[in-house]
């Protein structure tokens, strides 16, 4: 079974082709982040306008790269939510009508399911059940994955998502948008001993997160040292203290989650999962807990078409597709999904 996947939920246009036997055949991504940089954040209308220009040329490219004609395609998957409605509708309208025109099944995919299952594209792939930490610009979740399609949210952020906290703090540090990767870079030169930021919500039981206070703490630190002579030094040290606090907090909650669920496998997904300090720390932690941590390669952590093609292929093998319109959902609870039937 061979499926084309389209992802347009936010500011990346992604297209890929996944084959159930041969694996990922081709994938292409167009990132809009440079376009949104001058607005210091994603402008939904501009994102939608860009998707509708990019998506079809990307489809052409992946089909050419995969050497695939329509005769070998068994379905079209597209992200149907959650995300920006206008942006989602581009992938949904193109995907659904491509399927319609070829008489193929169309599969609406949950964006976060795509992220959660992205690690299964790698070898060795984690075996269910596992605990997933999903960390991105829009989400911070701890999820117990019993099996593909059966997700129990066991921890969530109460305010900012981790990636959002990274981006906002990066802005305070005069880093260009999107600042997450730039902040990581800057933190490498920072002194871990100079500042100690709080570890939010680790002093009480539970798996909830809160990251908005860390950004404020960074702002206040910068304000307190505004007369410091070596500002570059200061920025690096603040970046380091911020990242250490985030990584520490996530690690503490992941440890709790593994113990509470009595599971040993930890899967990390979402854009912040590309952060190397976080990867290293969670790898050690999983080992300490007698388990193993799994990370998709960086290009599968951020939004991409491959994860949608893959999740869509699993759903299609399980007999799920849509015959009607192509409605999308800005909000769509992950735990509302049904388990995927074995294909």
């Amino acid at each position, binding site marked *: 079974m061979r499926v084309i996947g389209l992802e347009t939920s936010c500011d990346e246009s992604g297209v890929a082709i996944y084959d159930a036997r041969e694996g990922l055949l081709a994938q292409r991504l167009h990132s809009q982040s440079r376009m949104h940089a*001058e*607005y*210091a*954040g994603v*402008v939904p*209308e*501009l994102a*939608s*306008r860009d998707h*509708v*220009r990019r*998506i*079809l*040329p990307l*489809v*052409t490219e992946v089909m050419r790269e995969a050497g695939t004609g*329509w005769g070998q395609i068994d379905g079209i998957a597209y992200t149907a939510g959650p995300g920006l*409605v*206008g942006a989602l*509708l*581009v992938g*949904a*309208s*193109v*995907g*659904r*009508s*491509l*399927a*319609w*025109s*070829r*008489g193929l099944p169309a599969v609406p995919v949950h964006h976060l399911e795509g992220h959660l299952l992205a690690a299964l594209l790698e070898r060795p792939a984690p075996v269910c059940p596992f605990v997933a930490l999903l960390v991105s610009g829009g989400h911070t979740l701890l999820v117990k994955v019993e099996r593909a399609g059966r997700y129990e949210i066991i921890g969530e952020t109460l305010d900012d998502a981790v990636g959002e906290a990274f981006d906002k703090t990066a*802005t305070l540090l*005069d880093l260009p948008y999107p600042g997450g990767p730039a902040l990581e870079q800057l933190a490498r030169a920072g002194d871990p001993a100079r500042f100690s930021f709080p570890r939010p919500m680790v002093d009480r039981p539970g798996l909830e997160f809160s990251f908005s206070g860390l950004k404020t703490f960074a702002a206040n630190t*910068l*304000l307190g040292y*505004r*007369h410091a002579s070596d*500002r570059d030094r200061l920025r690096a040290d603040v970046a380091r203290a911020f990242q250490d606090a985030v990584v520490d907090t996530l690690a503490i909650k992941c440890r709790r989650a593994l113990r509470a669920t009595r599971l040993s496998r930890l899967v990390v997904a979402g854009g912040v999962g590309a952060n190397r300090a976080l990867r290293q720390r969670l790898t050690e932690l999983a080992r300490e807990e007698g388990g193993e941590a799994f990370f998709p390669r960086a290009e599968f952590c951020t939004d991409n078409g491959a994860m949608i093609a893959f999740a869509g292929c699993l759903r299609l093998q399980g007999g799920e597709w849509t015959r*009607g*319109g*192509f*409605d*999308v959902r800005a909000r769509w609870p992950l735990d509302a999904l049904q388990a995927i039937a074995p294909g």
Partner: protein
Amino acid sequence: MKLLAIDTSTIACSAALFDGGDPRERFEIAPREHADLLLPMVDALLAEAGWSREQIDVIAFGRGPGAFTGLRIAAGVAQGIAFGLDIPVVPVSTLAALAHGAMREGGGTRVLAAMDARMREIYWGAYELEGGGRLVARGAEQVCAPMDARLPVGEGWFGAGDAWDVYGDILRLRLGPRLAGWDAGRYPRARDIALLAAPVYMEGGGLPPEQALPVYLRDNVAQPKKRKPSAPE
């Protein structure tokens, strides 16, 4: 020639089939339901006409101006179908379609198409039917305040579109006796998209699928954020 036309540029959603006779059309006022309605409408039309999908030669769509999300739905569907069937697309102005519909039903030859563009602006275009039945635009399409809409010369103009309700007072005042009448309850329809697109296609004016793109007219949709000055010294 078998032509499929779609339009989702306003609160109306419509699809039409045309092969030379009277177009077969589905039309519904259905705000926010376009994504659910459009393809089932096309399915129903195909079944009624006894066409198969593969017989469609060309797809025409309302390229705008209009509601941004709606324009992208029509463009996205046109892209998907055209790419899947390996057929060309014909983008059609929604203002021209609006004017064409008013002439088709009202019999006049001069129409001022005006759609509410929100933010106290309108989408505006003047159209005339020339000898030989060809619709011609008098001046470029505009997005502007009703006060700034460019008025064409001559008399006997008929107003069409919902802006003639929302901003009717200003527009009527400006036109004075040159306005022959108006119909604010009219929207662009796939039937007129089809009739306008057919000659374009026949003359070789079809475009490749990836060029099925919206024309928004309003392009200043976001203000760049000024860089904050560095922390105070």
